[in-house]
């Protein structure tokens, strides 16, 4: 049977079982709209200066929630993701801070910078025992590194 003419809908269930992963879907994008638009504003040098001069005041120009504003002020990257921020938008904020993708990724993993960088050099985080939440329940959390 040719698949081309078949009306097909992708299943959207099951994503919640993937451990340590937040799906940036339509509802989360709606929730995080002003977090992400704030980040976009930092692509202009003048806005970066204004933000750095008084972060709280600058953030109040965007109709985000108090929780979102506090997560930004604290640079709680994981919280920002949970509240609808997306990593590519957040990159404008951590670039303003002079930080890298690898720095921010490391802060979300519970590893130190050094541990994280070493893990990547050695081939990254293994997929084994990192596919489902039930695996993490058995192993006590994320597996890192690779099998030798």
């Amino acid at each position, binding site marked *: 049977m040719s*698949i*081309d003419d078949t009306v*097909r809908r*992708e*299943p*959207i269930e*099951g*994503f919640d079982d*993937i*451990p*340590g*992963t*937040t*799906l*940036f*879907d*339509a509802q989360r*994008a709606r929730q995080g*709209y002003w977090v*992400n*638009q704030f*980040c*976009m504003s*930092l*692509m202009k040098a003048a806005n970066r200066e204004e933000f750095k001069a008084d972060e709280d005041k600058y953030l109040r120009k965007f109709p985000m929630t108090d929780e979102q504003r506090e997560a930004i002020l604290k640079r709680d*990257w*994981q919280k920002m*993701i949970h509240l609808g921020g*997306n*990593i*590519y*938008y957040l*990159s*404008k904020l951590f*670039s*303003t801070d002079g930080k*890298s*993708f*690898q720095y*921010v*990724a*490391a802060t*979300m*993993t*519970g590893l130190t910078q050094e541990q*994280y960088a070493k*893990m*990547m*050099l050695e*081939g*990254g*985080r*293994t*997929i084994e025992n*990192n*596919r*489902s939440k039930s695996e993490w329940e058995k192993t006590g*959390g*994320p597996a*890192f590194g690779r099998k030798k």
Partner: protein
Amino acid sequence: MAKIVASVNVSHVPAIGAAWDNGKSQDPYWKPLFDGFDFSKKWIADLKPDVIILVYNDHASAFDASIIPTFAIGCAAEFPPADEGWGPRPVPTVIGHPVLASHIAQSLILDEFDMTIINEMDVDHGLTVPLTLMFGQPKEWPCKIIPLPVNVVQFPPPTGNRCFNLGKAIKRAVESWPEDLRVVIFGTGGMSHQLQGMRAGLINPEWDKRFLDSLCADAEVARRIPFIEYVREAGSEGIEMVMWLISRGALEKDVREVYRFYHVPASNTALGHLILENKSFQK
């Protein structure tokens, strides 16, 4: 007639562009990665494409959260490099092919793909890093480039099957253009990587290899991969690989694998690179 003869597939990690721009390409960390493109640079210099159709995703640079086109096509005469927060990359302005791009846009819409037509756009690392890897640092890019941005940032992106079929429609559009033009299509992004959460740093080389193997065959396996498999096996950002199905769909069923390169790590990411030519194509 115009003809797509080959595809170039490659990851577009921003740190690669930064390493190149800051003169670090010969550092021990980066040298093995850049060396992996020595063959590719010669191959594309010999092939001399007239036009590249470059499938990539914008990373919140040209588009913000206010407008999110699923499939877009750049019909402008030129596309400047974007300022992504640390100044534009010091790379040439991308010169488009407005006449051919407009023809492709019209053909795709009549073929039931609802393209967003973009007449002004800055292009970010998603488009410029693959050009750097394939061409180095020329004064100007050696051919015309038609950008084709795809949303893979906000879930859901278009399905792999939809992407594959868009590729087939692009093939039809190009082949209905009377002028003799040699066209190469780029699929970019991937491979396995996850940039967020407790599982950040995920790399799955076995899965990546299976994906590449399927593209070298007829992609019948790859085009049916459901989203959940991409996210679970290749990481939340690994879903970018649906764009490689657009470039695969634009080729013929029978292809030859010209070159493959795989390297870990590029920052947080597994870099993959695959060149395919139509079997019927003779240089």
